[in-house]
């Protein structure tokens, strides 16, 4: 009823600017629609240029990173090394070549990807510059921060170790 009223009051252009109305398809139509879409996507995928694929990959990586660093949960699998490995994978370049492009040693690159050390600040900036700002330096930095934040929040051994250095602790609870 409301849809009908809207369609009488507004032009198709105005409606397309404000609505996607639900459309019911029969089972047969649904099957046909799924097949048509799958074929169209397959053709597009085959015809996509390397540049299109790279842009799609970068956007996908950027959004995954954004969602993770803006979220409240820590996931040890989504580390700096994981995202860096994904970035290098998108470029379809050998690690040695990529390490040269950002002027770091290949060993350092491997250590970063395999989580053997944390990245120096200059690496996060070089990654931003290399990606032409597709992935900003602070995103990389916040990944490292997220790990540190989790460690500082949850590590019991550091608390045990540091306890000896604290005296006259407050005798109140909040």
């Amino acid at each position, binding site marked *: 009823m409301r849809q009908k009223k809207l369609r009488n009051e507004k032009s198709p252009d105005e*409606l397309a600017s404000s609505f996607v109305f*639900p459309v019911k*398809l029969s089972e047969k139509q649904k099957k046909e629609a799924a097949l*048509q*879409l799958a074929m169209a*996507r397959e053709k597009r995928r085959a015809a996509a240029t390397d540049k299109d694929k790279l842009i*799609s990959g970068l956007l*996908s990586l950027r*959004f995954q990173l954004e969602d993770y660093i803006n979220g409240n949960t820590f996931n040890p699998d989504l580390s700096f090394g994981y995202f860096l490995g994904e970035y290098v994978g998108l470029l379809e370049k050998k690690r040695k070549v990529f390490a040269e492009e950002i002027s770091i040693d290949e060993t350092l690159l491997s250590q970063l990807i395999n989580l053997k050390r944390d990245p120096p600040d200059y690496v996060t900036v070089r990654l931003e510059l290399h990606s032409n700002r597709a992935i900003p330096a602070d995103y990389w930095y916040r990944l490292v921060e997220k790990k540190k934040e989790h460690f500082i929040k949850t590590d019991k051994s550091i608390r045990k170790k540091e306890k000896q250095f604290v005296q006259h602790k407050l005798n109140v609870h909040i």
Partner: protein
Amino acid sequence: MIYYPVEERVEIKLLEVSRQYVGKNGPYEGIAGCMIAFAGRTALAKYGPYACVSLVPKTALKKHYMKKYGMLDAGWQLYLDMDALNNIVAKYTL
């Protein structure tokens, strides 16, 4: 939105802009574009570079979605993927 992980696709089943923003004289433009781009961003983050956003249009609105949002024709459905999806996502979300 309906998620189809196996197909790496998000379907927009219903999109509705608040009444006061509908029409040429509304205070803001591009609200529906933002919402379609949000679906695209979600699909890219969830499903990777070959993600897709689709909708089943009313016949009368089909060409308008194609013109306005660069949607592609797949018969019963319209869709966005690869460069077409990148363009709308970059325009509205970056």
